[in-house]
């Protein structure tokens, strides 16, 4: 019954039809929230007492690293669906999400490095948080490389899914690295369950930036997955009718 339900709602055709309808709303809402959050954080939030204005990088850095991890987690769920229930769409989504994950992880690493120059006096340190995030970036590239190295695409989908599941071990390591090891990177300033150590005047624009970037990346994911689905299913009748 579960298998029938999953297959009914996970056909590439229904995915394309549904996402085409919601895409304009997602992109408009995401970009508007992102502009609002960043404008608030960059121009109106007060200066930090210790870090001065360099802390304003937080409104790009924190949303980027949050989604660097969340995209991987999403890919791991898709990998499980592909391996257990043989859902084709799940493999297509992994392949489409991986370049976005790599890009956003790069932005997270780059923004952190630049922020480190005025704050720590160095752009790079081999500490647990930064190194585990670098490993995440390499994992994204590895997944794309592995998939690209097979001519048999079904086999590539399966092996890519297995690699994604193996790599998911890195996600709790990134999350807990600042607690488990003594790191140059500060512990988490915001918390979903407990109280945040960041002032509300900085927390609100940060929260809005996270939501804005999230919706923007979902919209980007819809675009990349649509082109990949068309590529993979180009000989199917529904694609011919659709384009």
């Amino acid at each position, binding site marked *: 019954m579960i298998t029938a339900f999953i297959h009914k709602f996970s056909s590439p055709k229904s995915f394309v039809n549904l996402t085409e309808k919601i895409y304009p709303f997602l992109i408009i809402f995401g970009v508007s929230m992102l502009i609002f959050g*960043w404008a*608030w954080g*960059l*121009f*109106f*939030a*007060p*200066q930090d007492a210790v870090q*001065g*204005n*360099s802390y*304003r*990088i937080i409104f*790009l*850095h924190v949303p*980027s690293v949050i989604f660097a991890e969340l995209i991987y987690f999403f890919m791991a769920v898709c990998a499980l669906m592909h391996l257990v229930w043989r859902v084709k769409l799940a493999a297509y989504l992994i392949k489409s999400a991986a*370049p*976005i994950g790599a*890009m956003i992880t*790069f*932005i997270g690493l*780059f*923004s952190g490095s*630049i*922020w480190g*120059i*005025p704050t720590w006096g160095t752009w790079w340190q081999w500490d647990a948080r930064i190194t585990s995030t670098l490993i995440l970036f390499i994992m994204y590239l590895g997944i794309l490389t592995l998939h690209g190295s097979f001519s048999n695409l079904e086999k590539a989908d399966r092996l890519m899914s297995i690699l994604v599941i193996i790599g998911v071990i890195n996600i709790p390591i990134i999350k807990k690295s600042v607690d488990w090891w003594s790191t140059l990177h500060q512990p988490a300033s915001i918390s979903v369950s407990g109280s945040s150590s960041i002032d509300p*005047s900085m927390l609100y624009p940060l929260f809005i930036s996270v939501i804005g970037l999230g919706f*923007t990346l979902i919209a*980007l994911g819809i*675009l*990349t997955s*649509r*082109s990949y689905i*068309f*590529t993979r299913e*180009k000989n199917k009748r529904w*694609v*011919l009718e659709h*384009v």
Partner: protein
Amino acid sequence: MFNLAFDNFNDILYMQGHGIYVWSVYLIGILMIATSFLIANKRIKAIQKKIKISNAPS
């Protein structure tokens, strides 16, 4: 809450010496995200064109 944190445009750009770090990060970030959208759109158009050509009646 919505009081401008800077006195003038120069202060916004300079950010007491941190402007170069802050603005370079946002510039690169925005460029990368915008480029990804452009590439994705271009790919959709290319594959749609390819499918149409390969299925056009000869």
